[in-house]
């Protein structure tokens, strides 16, 4: 961005588009925040590209036209900063912890983390390679338990889907996922969750053609409006 025409402070309501790349787990909250942002900035349209954090990073590395990137973990944000693609330094804006999820009728009678290791429980967790899986592994090791999952999924949503469909008796997902799923599931909190907190960082991007707008969006997320919305969706403070 060698001094491109991104001076958006001009009050002339010309149409501009801000592009936000955000982790899939932020879909609900960020869509709402986007609407809010558009209301605050007439003539600006916010579009989102939601996806797995690592997909998004790869795309940005290959030149995707992103102005803001919000990751579901620090590892993926680190890849970006390693390439020097961030604008301002990343800031953590939310965190998430694990919660046990079961079908509404809780057929396997799961009350605690220990119950997940019971024989005959169809347990589904994330694979250790993805963020929610490494969190699950930490919890498992911390509690000195040995899980025998029937499946190690690629993403939290895949875990949730197995539980909502009644296929699995229990799963380990994020608090926010349990909240978003509403009546479709039953959540069981457990104290050991505190040992594995997942942090969400956000940053503007170096090549952004709307640097000022991007900054404004990051500020919105970090500000009270953003934090309230995130809390409403179940996210904790970073």
């Amino acid at each position, binding site marked *: 961005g060698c001094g491109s025409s991104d001076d958006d402070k001009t009050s002339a309501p010309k149409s501009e588009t801000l592009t936000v*790349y955000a982790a899939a787990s932020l879909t609900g909250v960020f869509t709402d925040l986007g609407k809010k942002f558009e209301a605050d900035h007439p003539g600006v349209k916010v579009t989102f*590209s939601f996806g797995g954090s690592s*997909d998004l990073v790869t795309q940005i590395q290959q030149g995707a036209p992103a102005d803001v990137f919000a990751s579901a973990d620090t590892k993926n944000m680190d890849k970006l900063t390693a390439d020097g693609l961030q604008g301002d330094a990343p800031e953590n804006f939310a965190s998430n912890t694990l919660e046990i999820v079961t079908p509404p009728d809780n057929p396997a009678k799961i009350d605690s983390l220990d119950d997940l290791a019971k024989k005959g429980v169809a347990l589904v967790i994330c694979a250790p390679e993805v963020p929610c899986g490494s969190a699950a592994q930490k919890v498992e090791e911390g509690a000195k338990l040995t899980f025998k999952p029937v499946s190690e999924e690629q993403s939290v949503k895949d875990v949730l889907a197995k539980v909502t469909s009644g296929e699995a008796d229990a799963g380990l997902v994020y608090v926010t996922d349990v909240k978003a799923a509403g009546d479709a599931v039953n959540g069981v909190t457990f104290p050991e969750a505190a040992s594995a907190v997942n942090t969400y960082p956000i940053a503007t991007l170096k090549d952004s053609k709307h640097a000022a707008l991007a900054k404004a969006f990051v500020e919105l997320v970090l500000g009270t409006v953003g934090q309230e919305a995130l809390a409403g969706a179940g996210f904790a403070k970073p």
Partner: protein
Amino acid sequence: MGRTRTVGLPGWLYVPALVGAVFVLLPLVAIITKVDWANFGTLITSESSKDALLLSLRTSAATTVLCVLLGVPMALVLARTTFPGQNVLRSLVLLPLVLPPVVGGLALLYTFGRKGLLGHALEVMDIRIAFSTMAVVLAQTFVALPFLVVSLEGALRTAGQRYEVVAAGLGAGPTTVFRRVTLPLVLPGLLAGMVLSFARALGEFGATITFAGSLQGVTRTLPLEIYLQREVDPDAAVALALLLVVVAVVVIALARPDRREP
């Protein structure tokens, strides 16, 4: 009217045929039972759904055209010429079929992306392909092209060259033979190939999200929208999936040629 007689099929054959049909149809029925009919209308007429549907139809149509332009010559070269390494080439052309679409999308990124093989050349020409609607078309073409090539090559081989040879003997040059004999004779095969590639393009997800991203109105096709809606509103996702199915059935039924025995 006098009717040419068909030889009957062995009766036992209907059993596995029925099992197969049920196996394919039951899941579709299952989807339909999950649809929230009360809100079906509002779910599929939201701004983002309409954008996604239109984008899907536009890009799939463009993909089909591109597949015909590139695939027909490829099928002809594979079916009508012989050259060393032809079999290897044919296998390679089939590869997008076997590549998980996400890997295909990655491969496209490595090719057309900023840091890709052609990245520098494209940058010099000031062409940005990735993350544009063009990228969606390229991703869909990459996965759909083998369908057209394979089905058309098969049709060309089965049709044989007897009529082409006769036409050449009557003085027709290669272009005339191609236009007036080859193409009309394999038209059913070509149409079948077009339907297949259109269908494959319409359902394409993995390569698109990886190579083109998911921007509403620009790169977010119907399958991507379905995926996204699943995060926030599973009912909407199911409704959209049904919409996709209906669109596909309509297109396939419209395109189906009146296939009579030759």
